């Protein structure tokens, strides 16, 4: 498959993004590693190519466009703003114990669209745009909502410390499940024996004491009732055609009133999609969808997957990343909600193209 053909499909997608009002941008390929490492954590090193520049320090070959586009917007963007781009991203495939027979490409095209707006219709606008562009491919669309899950966790009758721990680890399913199980059981008191070892390292004795105090006061906490654990598990397990999922969420929101607002928002989004002529019955809503994506999505998430190609990554994916935009805007005292997504022209080409 030639690069030119993939480029042509990328240009076709880009034209659709421009027609939707986006301004085309061309971020650098070499990005400062520090920003990306701080945002994504050490895992990004397993996926991104890191290189050394004698003057600029550690640099990364662009693993995705989101960060540079957000930075560009925060530096000089007006509001609201729509951006689109087309270019290569670079990803290492650090496979496990055996080498795959057909390793995936280490560099491939992404065509993307990012919307910075305070308009509540932004979710529907972005989803509908991707849906319409990809319609000829008959992909399976799946939607999720991280904010819905986080609202449910925030609603748990727990101490602030316990709630914060659960929220922090919501993207790490097994650690989250272990924490939840621990909070649901009677707390065991724990001994912290005095240690003859001399103090060493940057973490201070005060920091340790603060944690020990927290763990000691944690012992006094009543265990989370089994009822709440079940409610949370029921919520996380919801996966159905969107209208049916909405019905199940409505029932559950009688028991977890704090998710009502997020459920209303989902309903508004689905209504807005229907009004744009989209069959919402064909969209799957999977409550846990965003837990398996990058940590930066904190609202709606979506993906479009090719049926019968389970070993493929999604053909397109995206979501809302308000927190990431806030972190990157902090230095410039700016904050604006953001939604965006990418399409892989290479996979679109393998499926026969858009026309």
């Amino acid at each position, binding site marked *: 498959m030639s690069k030119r053909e993939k480029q042509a499909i990328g240009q076709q997608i880009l034209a659709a993004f421009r027609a939707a009002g986006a301004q085309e941008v061309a971020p650098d390929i070499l990005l400062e590693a520090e920003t990306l490492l701080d945002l994504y954590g*050490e895992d990004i*090193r397993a996926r991104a190519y890191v290189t050394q520049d004698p003057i600029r320090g550690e640099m990364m070959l662009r693993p995705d466009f989101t960060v540079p586009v957000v930075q560009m917007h925060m530096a000089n963007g007006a509001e609201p703003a729509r951006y689109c781009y087309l270019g290569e991203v670079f990803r290492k495939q650090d496979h496990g114990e055996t*080498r795959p027979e057909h390793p995936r490409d280490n560099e491939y095209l992404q065509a993307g669209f990012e919307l910075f707006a305070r308009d509540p219709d932004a979710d529907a606008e972005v989803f509908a745009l991707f849906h319409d562009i990809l319609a000829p491919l008959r992909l399976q669309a799946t939607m999720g909502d991280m904010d819905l899950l986080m609202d449910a966790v925030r609603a748990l009758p727990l101490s602030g410390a316990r709630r914060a721990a659960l929220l922090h*680890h919501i993207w790490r399913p097994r650690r989250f499940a272990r924490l939840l199980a621990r909070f649901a059981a009677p707390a065991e008191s724990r001994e*912290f024996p005095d240690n003859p*070892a001399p103090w060493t390292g940057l973490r201070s004795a005060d920091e340790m004491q603060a944690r020990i105090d927290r763990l000691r006061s944690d012992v006094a906490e009543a265990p989370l009732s089994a009822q709440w654990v079940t409610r949370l598990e029921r919520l996380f397990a919801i996966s159905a055609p969107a209208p049916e999922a909405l019905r199940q969420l409505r029932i559950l929101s009688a028991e977890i009133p704090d998710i009502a607002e997020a459920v209303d928002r989902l309903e508004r989004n689905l209504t807005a999609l229907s009004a744009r002529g989209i069959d919402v019955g064909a969209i799957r809503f999977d409550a846990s969808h965003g837990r398996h994506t990058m940590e930066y999505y904190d609202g709606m998430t979506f993906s479009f997957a090719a049926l019968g190609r389970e070993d493929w990554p999604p053909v397109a994916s995206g979501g809302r990343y308000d927190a990431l935009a806030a972190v990157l805007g902090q230095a410039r005292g700016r904050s604006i909600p953001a939604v965006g997504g990418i399409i892989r022209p290479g996979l679109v080409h393998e499926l026969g193209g858009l026309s």
Partner: protein
Amino acid sequence: MIRLGVPSKGRLMEQTFDWFAARGVRLSRAGSEREYAGRVEGAANVALVLLSAGEIPRELQAGRIHLGVTGIDLIREKLAGWRSHVEELAPMGFGHADLILAVPACWSDCETLDDFAAIARDFRAEHGFRLRIATKYHRLVRAWLSAEEVADYQLVDSQGATEGTVANLTAEAIADITSSGETLRANHLKVIGEPVLQSQATLLRSVAAGDEGEVRDFAALLGI
């Protein structure tokens, strides 16, 4: 001719020679101590290649040697998709070493990996950067922490004297090979959780080198 790669110096070389000798094959250096050529007695068509233990994974992958002796830790760290490149023929019962995660012994609130994950999160909130783990085993440690769903840390490279990085304030924890734990204790560190990997010297067959029949005949001669 089967090319057998063996560590070129120290206890690892001596123990390898002993292991082969116990199986009727006498390996030795040819000529002086400084010469990296070898001699093989007790098996026909086998050539001894003396190499740095750290280079043996690469030579096996490239197929420039048919057989090699090295620690399984080096194989897993240096060869992505290692099972596609080498076959483990026999663990050799020496060169035992565990890759472990160690923290300051004074952290009396840190006994398990769950404690470590919680401390890393607190540390990041307090200091504004991720807790640093000094290591030279980047791939193994990262893959292990990722599988254990530990976040909020970063790896910093340390190619030697890793146990000293905590006292020097260039890392908060270390991941390194230890056999006895004495160096850890001397640097006021303690091991937490299970080892990342338990390693020992291992006889490995290169997939790329081919000549599988001949290699298996030699292995049979060694009683494998």
